[in-house]
């Protein structure tokens, strides 16, 4: 089996959740027929290579009281995208910040995802972004209904 295939096998085995035991890596290794050290080394390499962003908890944010979220899209002049993107990303409540393409009926090129405990907290972040960047053309998209939300699997 190729190295990549073993990595995929390892990720597939743990993507629904690591065993919550005293020795999770040893337990994973036992299930897959590899040593504890091999599991640790492979995960280290996957993290270093950026193939795994984090080995961490995904939190049900609504359940712990982080009930408000706003996808705020901004119309940013092309030459200001880099400067503005860094400012927006600097806010703790901004969890995602991306540049995306525009279309004839869609001119908002920078997307921010804002999470907060209340709508007012999200609004305050949007106001602060407006003040810090001088941008005024934006739309707040709130979610009316969630049809699907799952973590990315391979």
């Amino acid at each position, binding site marked *: 089996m190729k190295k990549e295939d073993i990595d995929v096998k390892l990720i597939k085995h743990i993507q629904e959740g690591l065993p919550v035991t005293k020795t999770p890596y040893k337990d994973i290794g036992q299930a897959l027929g590899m040593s504890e050290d091999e599991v640790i080394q492979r995960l280290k390499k996957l993290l270093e290579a950026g193939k795994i962003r984090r080995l961490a*908890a995904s939190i049900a944010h609504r359940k712990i009281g982080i009930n408000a979220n706003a996808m705020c899209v901004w119309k940013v002049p092309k030459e200001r995208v880099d400067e503005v993107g860094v400012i927006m990303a600097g806010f703790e409540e901004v969890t995602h910040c991306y540049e995306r393409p525009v279309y004839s009926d869609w001119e908002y090129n920078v997307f921010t995802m804002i999470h907060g405990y209340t709508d007012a907290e999200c609004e305050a972040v949007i106001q602060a972004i407006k003040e810090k960047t001088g941008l005024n053309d934006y739309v707040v998209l709130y979610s009316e209904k969630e049809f699907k939300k799952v973590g990315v699997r391979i």
Partner: protein
Amino acid sequence: MILSDTDRKILHRLQSNLPLVSRPFLELSKELDIDEDTIIERIKFMIEKGYVRRLAPIINTQAMGREATLAAIKVPEDRIDEVSAIINEYSGVSHNYLRKGKNKHIPYNMWFTMSAKDDEELHSRLKEIENRTGLTVRSMPTTKKFKIGVRFKIY
């Protein structure tokens, strides 16, 4: 909300990497000054009660060689259930929301993220959704990333 201060401390720490050592929860117990058995027991509790969706690798789809996009569609009100069901059939769809503009009207109402093993597969799936629904799908793949990292402030 039934989480204790201890739970919140654990939850906050768990959003960052689990140590890659033989006894990761023992390592956390030293950092947080909470004993290992308690940490394990509280994590299990928080998973069981649904506060933690999972303790697992967060996969970088693109680095794994996959392609991903955010797509938007304008779906007529009376076809929302039908179209969302079609979109949700695809395993590469990880999020699908009905969204509305708060301060301005926007031309699309259904927004979903889709990943596929490569560009070709991604485009053929989006095309398939267009064919099956008769609606135009606007694909908005990321052209630049400034931040990705859903870590929440835990009070």
